[in-house]
């Protein structure tokens, strides 16, 4: 994403949503007409445990400014344990990114149930706002992918 003076910075935000809870939650916020920024683009995965850390890095490489993962609340995983594994993996990954000096607010994980349409919308509004504050992703970007 380029920032140019006349136009305010619009971050690219990738949201990985588990099919059973969070994706349904996103649908619900749609059904209830709960607005959240267009910056957020959702990718459907069967479970939060399907999200490979490499996908997250890939997103940043290709020009994402923020990546958020949403899954079923702990205990509610459709596959019983998926989000527990995801929780450990993502915690460690985010910690490592932080360790490498990548801005913390570029990454997030939220548990959003199929019933929490409102929470989904709020989460996305907040996250987008946080990423906007940070400005474009530079520390984890691949210059070759930058749009000319």
């Amino acid at each position, binding site marked *: 994403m380029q920032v140019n003076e006349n136009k305010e910075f619009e971050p690219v935000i990738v949201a990985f949503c588990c099919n059973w809870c969070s994706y349904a939650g996103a649908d619900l916020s749609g059904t209830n007409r709960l607005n959240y920024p267009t910056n957020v683009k959702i990718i459907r995965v069967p479970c939060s445990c399907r999200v490979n850390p490499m996908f997250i890095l890939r997103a940043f490489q*290709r*020009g994402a400014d923020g990546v958020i993962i949403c899954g079923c609340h702990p205990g509610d995983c459709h596959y019983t344990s998926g989000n527990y594994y995801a929780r450990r993996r993502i915690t460690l990954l985010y910690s490592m990114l932080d360790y490498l000096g990548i801005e913390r607010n570029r990454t997030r994980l939220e548990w959003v149930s199929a019933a929490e349409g409102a929470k989904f919308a709020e989460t996305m509004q907040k996250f987008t706002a946080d990423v906007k504050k940070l400005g474009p992703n530079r520390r984890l970007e*691949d210059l*070759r*992918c930058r*749009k000319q």
Partner: protein
Amino acid sequence: MLKISKSKLNELFDAVSAKQALYLPVDRNDGAAEYKKYESGMTMSSALNTVRSAKDFFFPQTENLVDFKMEGKNIEVIDVREESEDFVIFGVRACDARSFTILDKVFLAEPVDSYYKNRRDHGTVVTMACTRPAETCFCKTFGIDPTVPEGDAACFDDGENIFFLANNDKGQAFIDSIASLLEEGDAAKLCEVQEKARAIMEKLPLAKLSTENFGGDKLTEYFNSEKWADLSEACLGCGTCTFVCPTCQCYDIKDFNTGHGIKRFRCWDSCMYSDFTKMAHGNPRLTQLERFRQRFMHKLVYFPANNNGEFGCVGCGRCLSKCPISMNIVKVMKALEVK
């Protein structure tokens, strides 16, 4: 002979870098040296050599060859070549200097590699004579005299002064460009220093290493040698030796999809890698033994065979100190030699 007092060296660097980019070896905080673009105040490293060789300047580890711009279904080809800036590499050692003549044989032979030539034409190599060779040095084996290095221009250190000598017009031009800072000087002390260095050369552990048993005609007796199994046994298949080597010139060409286009780039390849020279049908060298053998056969047999006797090694000793398992060309030569 023209000289400059070492205390004035930075004035010289400032003068050079004012006209064109200047690169010289500087010390890193980890004790190793690497080439850096000169910025005022930098001091030149006294280290014998840099971790990465000077070949990067003409044959960088990665370089973009061509771009493809994709819009919907159309693809546009974009030539990204542009004239290189003029630059000077200062303080190159004799071994690395020789490596350029080896690389030239590869990249400047028909068909000429325009990317390489571009840089070569715009680069001036100013070498620095060695005074304290290391135990890993064996350039002498390949007929290199580190006290009288090649390169466009050569420098000599007698302790207080740096003396300059042009080896060709490019070198002369360089010296002329800084002539105002130079003065005539007496090279007597320099000769002592050179003698000392030469004396040390004789005492080097590898001083006796010779190439007489190697060369283009030795293919059959070495290719099938049963020694390769033992020699390659511990090889990790990493690319360290090839990447620190000043003469390794194998590369791979790859496409990178940026999402809105393709960047076709070339990058160093290593014969130690499992996908080295992998082709549609697969890989001609399936085992580490074969790949390991390739590297040394190339330097000691194939290369001389194709370049009238010139070996593909300059004895800089980098692989000797950098190989994670300390397997290297010297051990290979000694093991193979038919006594």
